């Protein structure tokens, strides 16, 4: 049988039938949500998660996972269990928002009124 040239096989001589010891729960620690800022002035953006045993290592892993190419200036990490999120099932709480034109600049149109006024009052102006 052809073996690869993996040094762990050729030099360390790992047994091919080494014992299977399953990982215990929490072996891979908790998860942290990662927020990445590309450059000063940008918002931090959620980019994913890392598994880590504590905040410091979460930051270290985040730098490797989400900051190893391109530009970065800052990273935040937050324990997943500390994030309190709304429920997608409750998304109807946002439903009427696009209708609230009185909150938008576009909800205030005056040109028609001005033009009408000008037309009716030509002599005065």
């Amino acid at each position: 049988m052809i073996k690869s040239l993996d040094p762990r096989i050729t030099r360390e001589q790992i047994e091919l039938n080494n014992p299977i010891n399953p990982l215990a729960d929490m072996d891979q620690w908790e998860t942290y949500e990662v927020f990445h800022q590309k450059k000063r002035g940008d918002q931090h953006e959620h980019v994913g998660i890392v598994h880590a045993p504590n905040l410091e290592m979460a930051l270290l892993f985040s730098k490797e996972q989400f900051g190893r190419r391109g530009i970065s200036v800052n990273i935040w990490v937050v324990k997943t269990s500390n994030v309190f999120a709304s429920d997608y099932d409750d998304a109807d709480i946002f439903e009427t928002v696009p209708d609230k034109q009185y909150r938008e600049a576009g909800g205030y149109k005056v040109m028609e009124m001005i033009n009408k006024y000008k037309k009716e009052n030509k002599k005065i102006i």
Partner: protein
Amino acid sequence: MYGNAYIDPNEKPLSILDGEDPIKLAEFEARIDRGEKIEPKDWMPKEYRKQLIRMIEQHAHSEIIGALPEGTWITRAPGFKRKLALMAKVQDEVGHAQLLYSAAETLGKSREAMINDLITGKSKYSNVFNYPALTWADSCIIAWLIDAGAIINQVANSKGSYGPYGRALERICVEESFHLKYGHHNVVTLATGTPFQRQMVQEALTRWWPPIMHFFGPSDKISNHTTILMRWKVKMASNDDMRQQFLNMYVPKIWDLGLVVPDVNLKLNEATGLWDYTEPDWDEFKRVINGGGPCNAERLAVRRNAEEKGRWVRKALLQKDSSYVTPLA
């Protein structure tokens, strides 16, 4: 990098929609039809969850195991620049595995459970990584052509319906584009080099061609199952379509270098616009995916060894009061 998720053809056909709430199912399908994404806490059919876990998990394992044949060449890379690049590529692959494990975790399977299924041999990973990278040129062919195949697969899947998988794949595809360019640069360097280098890269191509043709998997059986997975945007393109796309993009580039593809029947059929090729040996594919390949045993042994040796470090760092919460997105 990755091969297409493997569905065992002997898997019992399921009564896929048994016991699903018809109203919730209709809402779910309507959302997908509107082009909206499904997020982790949304209601989803059991079969959707099961197939996505299987697919994302296999993909993650493929990234981890895929790092092994290439990683072998880090210590023997020809020159400092190539060594740095190969280390960066291998680190990317392991990073991809972590992104993917996270995406699968949002569906409710823990990372420990997935790793356990890998090291016990219960889960599959891409079949190509059960072959050895015998020379430096093999690692170059992998980086170019296997990663090229992976990109075709991943670009298709990134448009799928599950939000976390799509987001992970978008990030992965950006990084894979470096792998592809790096692999091409390596292959071109060898193919335009000395006669010995040319011979080495030709031999590597000859060795890797059958696994490359296996890469996208056998022709899809047209079944109700496949139809539903495509309707749910879990499966985004048929295996044959992806294989054709790969041949269309890369065979001309291989021929450009004067290299020979070891298949006398390989040609673009002017009438159909599709590539004709010798049907890959699917018995060999099945033999290897079921454990009979040259490197299956050592890949898992190396992985088990890594888990074993790191265990005390992870345990030492584990804090008593920590408890697991499924990641959010």
